[in-house]
């Protein structure tokens, strides 16, 4: 079946502009995660959705970052007033339920470059 998909695969934007990144999780997966990987860094947890529960936003680096998940499926990560330090690969993962890391299936990521 289809895996986790993300769009766009690449995004170049100017500093100060807003961007939206999209994640389509695997059908039936109730848990959805956003991570980012900056150059030379590990995967940094951003936000986690589980079903209808309030999301765990503990990893969001600033209030410029927000995410929503509509209908328990597709998720959008929005970065407002982008800064150059926001340049990174943004990865989405989904899992059937929150559990061990091996249950997470990752998308290919969106490479964001802020000029």
């Amino acid at each position, binding site marked *: 079946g289809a895996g986790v998909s993300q769009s766009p*695969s690449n995004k170049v934007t100017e500093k100060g502009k807003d961007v939206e990144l999209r994640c389509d999780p695997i059908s039936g997966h109730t848990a959805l995660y956003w991570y980012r990987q900056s150059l030379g860094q*590990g*995967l940094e*947890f951003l936000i986690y959705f589980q079903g209808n529960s309030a999301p765990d936003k503990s990893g969001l680096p600033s209030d410029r970052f927000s995410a929503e998940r509509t209908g328990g499926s597709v998720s959008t990560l929005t970065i407002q007033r982008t800064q150059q330090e926001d340049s990174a690969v943004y990865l989405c993962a989904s899992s059937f339920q929150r559990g061990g*890391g091996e249950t*997470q299936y*990752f998308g*290919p990521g969106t490479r964001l470059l802020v000029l």
Partner: protein
Amino acid sequence: DQQVKQNSPSLSVQEGRISILNCDYTNSMFDYFLWYKKYPAEGPTFLISISSIKDKNEDGRFTVFLNKSAKHLSLHIVPSQPGDSAVYFCAASVSRGQNFVFGPGTRLSVLP
């Protein structure tokens, strides 16, 4: 300050030999560890895990060793194959189901 460190950004190994990828962590509360493999333009895929109740876990050519006292784990691949060429990430959490902290990755190149 990185809680999970992979001090070798890259590693080259001859096909058929052993690949050893190392990972160090600073948080003594970490209790569950994973290795992921990532090919270019793809998301990471789970490879192998280990919890602190064990010091070794083996799956085919892949073995993970954990030394809790040294806060160190390693991934051994033997024999290495060209298809193993990828970036390998180490990740740790305080327990299964909790958020993971990832290392920066080590790029492994297996030369034919």
